[in-house]
């Protein structure tokens, strides 16, 4: 199946439409909430929570004995929240640092989850097959009710986000100030963390425990490069997330043997890479270009300053001098000289150069900060 066929099928084929919609919604909601995780420096929390959700899935299955995805996700949610609050407990009550706390909870919960999963596998319950899809996720198992569930949760998230936008924003950038203003910071904090946990849990079925953190981070990290405004970032991040979901599904559906989760993550990774390189204000490419341009300007200024020092010793500033004497000066090349001529700072006459009136003025003010046309 190639891409054009895929596009045709999206509108006709039930399964493909469900999966595409599901991954798109998932990408949007994780991207949206991921912005907060990234800005709150809780990027790795997503990784820890997604691993910590595993025992919850197993326990929910052990209790109910059924594979109802909503019940399993509820278990995951509870276990993820326990993990999150334990991480906070470790950080605030002991001298262990946040990275240790995250790594601890991540590996311990996951190991316990694996113990339970292998324990379940030995049980004589035919229902248990397929629980391990939560490890790496299987978008193909999405059904319409799952998508509805995601859509509803996304709607609630969006509603709460808009309702408490001001509170979230101020907590994000100045927690102390928020407290002095009389907001209940603890409550806002718990609210946003719970939503992050919720978004992660939603994604477990589709991309799995291991790769979920990238779904949370990548769109947000990409969006961060294009803007400094929170609302734009959340919006962009949701768009990037949704597109990663759609493209990822498209690519994995058009190839054999490709599971959706990893492909979505790689597509999101491409978004990040492109943003890192090509973002106009922060991107590496433009940064490098600006760097080179600045260096050139500096060289030009040095040449001009050198000329100025020579011209200063003469009564007539436009007194011609031989180009040769410039050779003693390091930053000089024919190209820079040509540039100076273009800017009408210098006149060339055969092998002689002379400063113009304008050039002299610019040069004398070069380091005075007053001329704002430094470019």
């Amino acid at each position, binding site marked *: 199946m190639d891409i054009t066929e895929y596009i045709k099928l999206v509108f006709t084929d039930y399964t493909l439409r469900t999966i595409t919609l599901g991954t798109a919604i998932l990408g949007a909601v994780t991207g949206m909430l991921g912005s907060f995780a*990234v800005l709150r420096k809780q990027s790795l929390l997503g990784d820890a929570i997604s*691993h910590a959700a595993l025992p919850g899935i197993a326990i929910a299955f052990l209790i109910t004995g059924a594979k109802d995805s909503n019940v399993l996700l509820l278990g995951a949610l509870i276990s993820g929240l326990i993990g999150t609050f334990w991480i906070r407990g470790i950080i605030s009550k*002991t001298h262990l640092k946040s990275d240790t706390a995250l*790594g*601890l909870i991540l*590996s311990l919960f996951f190991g316990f989850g694996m113990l339970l999963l292998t324990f379940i596998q030995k049980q004589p319950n035919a229902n248990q097959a397929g629980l391990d899809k939560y490890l790496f996720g299987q978008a193909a198992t999405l059904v319409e009710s799952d998508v509805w569930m995601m859509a509803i949760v996304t709607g609630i998230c969006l509603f709460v986000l808009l309702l408490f936008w001001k509170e979230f924003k101020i907590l994000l950038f100045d927690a102390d100030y928020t407290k002095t203003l009389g907001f209940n910071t603890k409550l806002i904090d718990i609210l946003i963390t719970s939503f992050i946990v919720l978004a992660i849990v939603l994604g477990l079925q589709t991309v799995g425990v*291991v790769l979920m*953190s990238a779904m949370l981070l990548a769109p947000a990290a990409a969006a*961060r490069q294009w803007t400094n405004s929170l609302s734009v970032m959340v919006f962009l991040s949701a768009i990037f997330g949704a597109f990663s979901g759609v493209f990822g599904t498209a690519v994995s559906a058009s190839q054999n043997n490709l599971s959706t989760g990893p492909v979505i993550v790689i597509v999101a990774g491409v978004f990040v890479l492109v943003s890192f390189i090509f973002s106009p204000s922060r991107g*590496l490419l433009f940064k490098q270009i600006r760097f080179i341009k600045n260096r050139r300007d500096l060289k030009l200024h040095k040449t001009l300053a050198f000329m100025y020092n020579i011209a200063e010793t003469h009564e007539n500033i436009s007194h011609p001098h031989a180009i040769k004497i410039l050779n003693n000066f390091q930053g000089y090349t024919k190209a820079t000289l040509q540039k100076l001529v273009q800017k009408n700072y210098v006149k060339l006459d055969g092998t002689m150069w002379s400063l113009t009136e304008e050039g002299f003025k610019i040069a004398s003010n070069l380091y005075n900060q007053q001329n704002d046309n430094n470019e």
Partner: protein
Amino acid sequence: MSSAQIEIQLIASLVAIACAIPGTFLVLRKMAMISDAISHSILPGIVVGFFITQDLNSPLLILLAALTGIITVVLVEYIQKTGLVKEDTAIGLVFPILFSIGVIMIAKNANDVHLDVDAVLLGELAFAPFDRLIVSGIDVGPKSLWIIGSILIITIGLLFAFFKELKISTFDAGLAASLGFSPAVIHYGLMSVSSITTVGAFDAVGAILVVALMISPAATAYLLTNNLKRMLIYAICFGVFSAISGYWLAHWLDASISGSITTMLGLLFLAVYLFAPNKGVIAVMYREKQQRTEVSLLTFLLHLKNHTEERERHVNHLNEHINWQKVRSKTVLDLALKNNMIKFDKNIVSLTEKGEDFTSQAIDYIITNEDAQIEDMKDDFFLFRG
């Protein structure tokens, strides 16, 4: 106990020791999450190595995969240096992407590769004794035992050789640099050892257990001691204890060995987290309560000292003036009485001589901003703590 069981426990214990040593330093250097990143991102390295060598236990594969681990660290540091995102985001971006590449590489070649992601991530210790190393026709033991054994010997050798350097650069990177030890060399050395240990252990116990074995024994030990040597020893003991008890738990439950070892590590950590003598949650909460009462006591004594008039020192008045809840005022009063700092005279409270002394010293310290001294002073005056 059959010989296979002994071998499994031996392998698990050796892995635990090999992980605890670099793990201790990772925890102290606040780089615990790097081990998680490495354990995931070695997957593409393992896959490429497997294509080349066709043998999961070949040393070349271990080196290649360890190289991917180091590439991860370098990549994370590069992204972080660009300043585009914070360090934790950089870690969180790099390893899932590398891991995804690994998963896709396996999926695309699923037919001719005897390797699956579950095995890499979770390992299967129970099968480790069946893969024997045969040297000139003689069976000398399981391959993983030899691999992890050699890694352990190298790690211990490096630890003894560079203990001083590691210690200084961990606790005071600036001093280490000024003394002429390159922090970069030690940093990348530690990263290399961690990567190699992770790769050497993943086959036996799986990538996630490696993370658990690196971080949790060290974190548990860190709650019990501040001494580096002791911390290393404790971490090793915890690791080995969980490895062996975890094996028997798995035996009893008939479940995954790596899962049960992690669970034992978790229980151990939980116990220490709650009950550690100085840094456990219960100890911390008790100390906080004690300090709260003692601060209240000090406030109360200061109030008494400031007011000579009887009206201000009447029990009823104190209750409403200082506005503590009944229970709290009772604990504070009891404490003051027990320590012989106040006396009652017809419902009028006044300071004893000892109380006077204590209060004036406390005022001195507060005025001169030497609040820390109050703790020492408490030892001198208090017979009973709050």
